[in-house]
């Protein structure tokens, strides 16, 4: 049996990512990084982007996993597939359509509530379908075993469900976080001109500013890629012992 070949895809993905990063590094000098890290506009953009990304991710994760628990054995799961047909741009239109005249949560408000709501509309179904297979595989006998051993509800939840959900949930969280942190379309349509989210700020800097601003955009791509990479390494490092424990427990 032919066992597939992962190298063409790996070469394409890693090639483009690492080459893009390499070009960005070669286009910048250390002065650009100093300028970037003291740039008030960038720092404020980083702060407000983190706020939007963290709130959206945490809410989408919690609501998504609760829905997955509640609906895993029902036909209602099909309902949540419908938002999967709506592109992100279309979801932004829904926000323009319904929230435009609403005071606090409308588009173009500095609190970015409309952006967060739009992400929730798209990402709750994403989390739901990402975790559905995991939730369906949860073995209720672990729960019974915990009951028999007289564990407290919190510890019972952790040993019967938490350990299995933690790694997939962190994975989903990281995908959402990286996506929302640097996305362009939704914040460009629904956000405000100041402070802009990172994706919008970088894109405008690269395309609208004069050429002297471009190194700043390249420095941004290096710093943010590097930062996210560190976070990823930290996360995998922290969860690896747990992940190996779980997979060993299953195979034996």
């Amino acid at each position: 049996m032919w066992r597939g070949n992962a190298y063409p895809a790996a070469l394409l993905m890693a090639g483009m990512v690492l080459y893009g990063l390499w070009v960005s590094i070669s286009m910048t000098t250390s002065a650009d990084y100093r300028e970037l890290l003291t740039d008030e506009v960038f720092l404020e953009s980083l702060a407000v982007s983190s706020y939007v990304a963290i709130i959206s991710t945490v809410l989408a994760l919690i609501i998504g996993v609760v829905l997955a628990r509640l609906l895993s054995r029902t036909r209602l799961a099909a309902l949540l597939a419908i938002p999967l047909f709506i592109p992100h741009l279309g979801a932004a239109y829904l926000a323009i359509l319904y929230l435009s005249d609403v005071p606090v949560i409308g588009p173009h408000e500095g609190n970015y509530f409309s952006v967060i709501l739009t992400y929730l509309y798209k990402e709750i179904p994403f989390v739901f379908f990402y975790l559905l297979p995991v939730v369906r595989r949860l073995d209720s006998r672990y729960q019974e075993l915990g009951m028999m051993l007289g564990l407290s509800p919190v510890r019972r939840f952790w040993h019967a469900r938490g350990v299995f959900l933690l790694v997939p949930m962190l994975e989903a969280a990281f995908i959402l976080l990286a996506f929302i942190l640097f996305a362009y379309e939704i914040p460009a349509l629904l956000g405000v001109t100041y402070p802009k989210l990172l994706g919008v700020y970088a894109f405008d800097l690269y395309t609208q500013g004069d050429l002297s601003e471009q190194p700043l955009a390249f420095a941004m791509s290096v710093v943010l890629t590097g930062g996210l990479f560190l976070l990823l390494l930290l996360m995998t490092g922290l969860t690896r012992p747990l992940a190996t424990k779980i997979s060993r427990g299953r195979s034996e």
Partner: protein
Amino acid sequence: MMKKISVTVFVVLLFIVPLIGLIPGEWNWNPRLEATLGTTVAMICAVVLLNHLFGYMAGKAIAFQTGKRIRIAEFLISLPLFVPVLLLSFGLYLTWIRLGLADRFFGVLLVLLLPTLPYTVRLYTNGFQALGERMLEQMVLIEGNRFKRWFYLTGPMLRSTLQSVTLLVTVITISQYALVALIGGGIVRMISLEVFPAYSGNSQGAARLATLWLIGLPILFYAGQAVIFSSWIRIVRRRLNGSHDTTSQ
């Protein structure tokens, strides 16, 4: 029971009801929008096909190979999920200019693999894992010819994976404005380049029409694929003379 009803109401109210506002009172045409359909459909087809090709091979490898090298390959494939793709495309654009790929269909096509292929590979990996190695080995015993085997067994059994991949790739591709505007330089005109300004403009009608196309195209692709699959499976059943058919009894 109460809980189930309230969850249903919650889901329907928040996720389904908002779509009602998209139903148009009267249908209009916008020539600028329709002029982008050729490029958009061609791009979606190309991105979908490349995703199936690379994703199938890689997903199968990740599901059935073991060892350090495949884990590294898996990590490399998922890289675009964890890095700012738009920001890295600034650097790629400079390279594309040198390679003559900037402002070209093929250049945009390559970059559009970044936000799509990692998801595709995940879907295929899950699909192959659900199918299982034993099942695939069993199929080798049943049918020796690999093309026949794929047509009669593997393809139909991977149906839901194939369908999800096409849907996801279509939806992501059609929604990319920044990447297409940057790498395509405004010359590769996909539908998002018309939709985006329509949303920032004042015309409600133009924005609504644009959204209908935006949602309609993925549905059309999905429906087209569903038709292909059902006729495929009908042919397979007829060829097998109904003797293996357990569902329609």
